[in-house]
């Protein structure tokens, strides 16, 4: 005989216990759906969507620039060194990998779609970093022996604010293709985006 069951059936307050236990079980089942610390949530940092949108636009802008096309017609393939993004953002960190990605993807898109118009030269830091790794592959001539005419640089700036309710970042990402000999800007374009993250109950 199920004496425990009989006890609960005869005592009205046992319903309370059962309800509480049921609630606990429901909550416990709900917890099974808890996301990990890196799966849920979002922030106001530049993300992969910005990376794609920004670099697509910049690559198209460079390729379609009349000044760039005129330079190609007069000089042939442009010899360009690509630098990582300069972080001038307020209260934002941009790790090296990300800083390189935002200009590397522009280079990739241009070398894919216009291979006959640009020659890409590895920047000094990347060269020495690879050399430190003692790879068995030839790295080519030292940076000092190379003579890039142009530099593709990007500067990211932002205005940030944070309160107990919200964090917002307004970004201005400026890309420039500068002539290293004349110190003039051959091409420039910008990408702007504002991001807001509203804090939740436990943030």
């Amino acid at each position, binding site marked *: 005989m199920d004496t425990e069951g009989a006890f609960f059936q005869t*005592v*009205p307050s046992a319903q*309370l*216990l059962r309800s509480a236990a049921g609630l606990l*079980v429901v909550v*416990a089942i*709900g917890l099974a759906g808890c996301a990990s610390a890196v799966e849920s949530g979002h922030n106001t940092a530049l993300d992969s969507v910005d990376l794609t949108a920004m670099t697509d636009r910049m690559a198209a802008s460079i390729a379609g620039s009349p000044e760039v096309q005129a330079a190609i017609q007069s000089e042939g393939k442009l010899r360009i060194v690509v630098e990582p993004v300069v972080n001038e953002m307020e*209260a934002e960190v941009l790790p090296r990998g990300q800083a390189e990605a935002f200009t590397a993807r522009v280079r990739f898109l241009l070398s894919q779609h216009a291979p006959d118009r640009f020659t890409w030269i590895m920047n000094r830091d990347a060269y020495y970093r690879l050399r430190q790794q003692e790879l068995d592959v030839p790295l080519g001539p030292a940076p000092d022996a190379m003579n890039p005419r142009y530099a593709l640089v990007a500067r990211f700036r932002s205005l940030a604010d944070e*309160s107990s309710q919200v964090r917002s970042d307004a970004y201005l990402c400026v890309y420039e293709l500068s002539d290293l000999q004349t110190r003039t800007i051959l091409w420039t374009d910008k990408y702007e985006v504002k991001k807001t993250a509203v804090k939740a109950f436990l943030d």
Partner: protein
Amino acid sequence: MCCLLLQMNLLQRKIFFPGSSVASCFARLRVRGSFPPFVRLPVVLCLVVLALLSGCAEDQVIDQAVSDYVIGDYANARNLLRPLADKTDENFVLNNCRLGSVDLADYHINDAQKDFLRAYEVINSVGVNNGGRTLGAIALDEEIKIWKGEPFERAMANFYLGLTYYIQQDYPNARGAFENALFKLRDYGEEGDKGDQYTQVESNFALGFLMLGKCYQRLDRPDDAQKMFDQAIQYRPELRELANFDVNQKSNVLLVIDFGYGPYKQKNVDGAIVGFAPTPAEAGPVPRPMIVVDGQTLDLEHMNRPPVDLLALAQDRRWQSIDTIRVVKSALGTGLIAAGAYEGLRQHSDPGLALGLIAAGVVLKATSQADVRQWEMLPRTTFILPVSLPPGTHDLAINFPAAVGMSQTWHGIVAPSTGEATYYFRMQRYDAGPYDWPPPALTLTGSTTAPAAN
């Protein structure tokens, strides 16, 4: 049975509820109500014991890692913490902060940067606790939520991230992290009079302004640097010598010294209200360091004042909505237990009702316990000492005359001829040295000196 479970829950909450596998086992047991009691009870007991054992194991690992850190056995602490820091559970941020402290103290600068960066990304995110975790934190146990730390802990995570960048001379990113550190403490200042409280709160983190000023100097933005130094002095006039523009400009060696231990979280008797102890008054004044270089004591000209006291900063803890929920639950629980006791004692009482009320009260009390997870490695203060030494290698000793046994000696500290080399030291009572620079971790990475700026 219910009371037993709840008492066990009180003892070991962290692992019991977050373990979704255990929770789902309970769910299955409940759904398959056809189990006879003689099967159900032992199974439940086994699950509880297993959950407790796994929880105990993880807590013991943390305790051991903290102990290793305190005695300066960083290698062992790192080995213990690394697997935990890789788990993206509710302690992801906390364990990465802990690991970052260990890596930084052992000069694994790149690893420390990765650790703090992982913590930074989650700390800066919103909505990480949405859904099941919020429900669980309210209904069951606050430790189900993903730990993001108190504002001062968030600020220190950003500070250390900035420090790793500063050591590596990545000044733009260091600046970004230090600015973010100041943001984390702004939260305090927004209840009530916004403007004044901003000032009051940010003044407690003059450390951030100091390092921001130094970053701007290295970024060749002297006006911004001066502004930051001025702000540090405005809020903390006693830091005038430390925040001197010329002293920082001329310095070729920056000593960053973590001293003592920060506050620890404690609950009241009821367990529902959390606070930090000790207070600065209870702990006494922060001892000041004395620096001896090549046998001669440096004249620090009052620069050795603590730019931050985390014991004081922690006292500003902001009351949060979940604190109110816990307190209300606890009060209700007390009321139900009292009502149950009264019901049980009165004549013609209904024992079932009394038991039900007491059990419900115990449930509420048990689930209203405060979250006392904390970053144990945090120091009480971080001294910033910009000094000018003749270029070359030096023997350096850091002494705290007012704190017996607190000293550290290093041979071969490099002072560059140009720029500034940054050295981080974690003062531990059982870790006096002498040590040779570069430490093994830097030797392994091929770096023999702290980097010198150009």
